[in-house]
């Protein structure tokens, strides 16, 4: 089944490569490689050059990783295949981190030398923001729950039709690699994963709604509209993506009970994942971080007064980890990327990031027992 491996290499490495390469072009224009700058320096030749070299470097690394993977898939054999995809993904992410850090430190030095941020700094907040509709209601997760419940009902009703040994894992040749004796918890595993997904999407939607408002002080009204559109679009996308994931997991018990070929479940999960990955790329490119690429009508009478954002570089460790004990915010926008991150100075943030991870490990281990 080298075909499957080739497909997996393409659907994983190509989108990942595109995303990491595009990041510096999708951030807010007041940030460059994790360093706060004034928007007018965004097109500075030196800074543009950094973006170009970064894109060239990470893009080449992605192409090399893909080519190495395809060569290995064609000429090598055996157990190496299990490690190939994670290893190549790891190599790509390390290459990206190396390029990012190089330019992060160069940006810092450049800012030091040339003073890229105006000392006239302001923070702006709209007192009506909490009344705006920032994300879809969590009630939109009810269809997801309904699918999970239907899947559970199916598993229980057709329990007798499930094979006596459940395949937990296939190797890349498509043969069963690990099986367990049939049990209720084994049969219901896809449902447990569906419920876990619903929990994850609930947390994500909560994050989108409650992440702090980050307005551009030089254009507060425009950035407010962009930011609301940004949040709503991502929230809607999360709901659709979550529904597709939950639906694709429902194919697993159908495949088991009706003895469909294993490829049916694989195809369902792969198709859903591909749609989601494509959606992420399209949405990231069209919205930009914080909605900075969304075109909104310029609100009348909003003069650009050239006020800078607050220089909070010192709270951003390496430009990517926000640690500010004075800031009660739990969620906020990433500085290098599209989407949100947490304030690592808040214990709740740790719980929300690592809680689900611990939960899934516990689920998997308890199923193995």
């Amino acid at each position: 089944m080298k075909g499957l491996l080739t497909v997996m290499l393409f659907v994983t490495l190509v989108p990942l490569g595109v995303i990491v390469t595009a990041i510096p072009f999708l951030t807010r224009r007041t940030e460059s490689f994790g360093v706060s700058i004034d928007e007018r320096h965004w097109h500075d030749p030196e800074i543009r050059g950094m973006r170009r070299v970064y894109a060239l470097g990470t893009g080449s690394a992605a192409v090399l990783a893909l080519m190495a993977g395809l060569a290995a898939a064609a000429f090598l054999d055996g157990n190496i295949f299990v490690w190939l995809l994670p290893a190549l993904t790891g190599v790509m992410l390390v290459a990206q981190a190396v390029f990012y850090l190089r330019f992060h430190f160069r940006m810092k030095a450049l800012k030091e030398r040339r003073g890229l941020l105006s000392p006239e700094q302001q923070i702006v907040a709209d007192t009506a923001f909490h009344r705006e509709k920032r994300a879809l209601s969590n009630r939109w997760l009810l269809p997801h729950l309904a699918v999970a419940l239907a899947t559970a009902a199916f598993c229980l009703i057709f329990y007798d039709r499930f094979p006596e040994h459940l395949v937990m894992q296939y190797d890349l040749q498509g043969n069963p690699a690990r099986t367990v004796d049939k049990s209720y918890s084994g049969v219901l595993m896809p449902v447990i994963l569906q419920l876990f997904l619903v929990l994850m999407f609930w947390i994500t939607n909560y994050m989108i709604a409650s992440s702090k408002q980050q307005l551009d002080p030089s254009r507060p009204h425009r950035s407010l509209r962009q930011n609301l559109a940004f949040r709503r679009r991502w929230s809607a996308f999360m709901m659709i993506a979550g529904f597709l994931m939950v639906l694709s997991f429902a194919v697993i018990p159908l495949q088991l009970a009706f003895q469909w070929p294993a490829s049916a479940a694989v195809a369902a999960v792969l198709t859903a994942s591909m749609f989601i990955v494509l959606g992420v790329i399209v949405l990231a490119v069209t919205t930009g971080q914080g909605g900075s690429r969304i075109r909104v009508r310029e609100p009348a009478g909003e003069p650009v007064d050239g006020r800078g954002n607050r220089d909070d570089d010192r709270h951003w460790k390496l430009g990517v980890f926000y640690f500010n004990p004075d800031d009660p915010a739990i969620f906020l926008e990433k500085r290098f990327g599209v989407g949100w991150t947490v304030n690592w100075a808040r214990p709740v943030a740790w719980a929300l990031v690592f809680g689900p991870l611990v939960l899934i490990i516990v689920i998997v281990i308890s199923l193995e027992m």
Partner: protein
Amino acid sequence: MLIRIDLQSDEPIYQQLFNQIVEGIASGALQPGETLPSVRSLAADLGINLHTVGKAYTHLKQEGYIQIHRQKGALVQPGPIPEADGAFFGKLEKRLRPLVAEAICRGVDERRFCEVCGRLYQQFGKGGIGA
């Protein structure tokens, strides 16, 4: 209403917050009964300490500009704001005194000083500030 905090200003942040909310009420940008963000969410939006916002809100509440409910959170005083009394005029005079003194030193006479006050009154009347 947009709240703008100047980070370079000598004025403490809680005082800037207090002043801007009072200006919002005076200009009509904040309507009576309008809900305000909670202390936590405003502090998060501004990226400042909870106590700074808490101090401004407490001060606003003491002066009768806002109400703080356990369930509804903070809202702009829906009823009448306490009218100016002797204590208020005392405070007003105390604050104006150094400004008047400075103005006199710089050759600003009473008429011109009052003109500036009149202009400010007009700006609030039009809702020109903070809207």
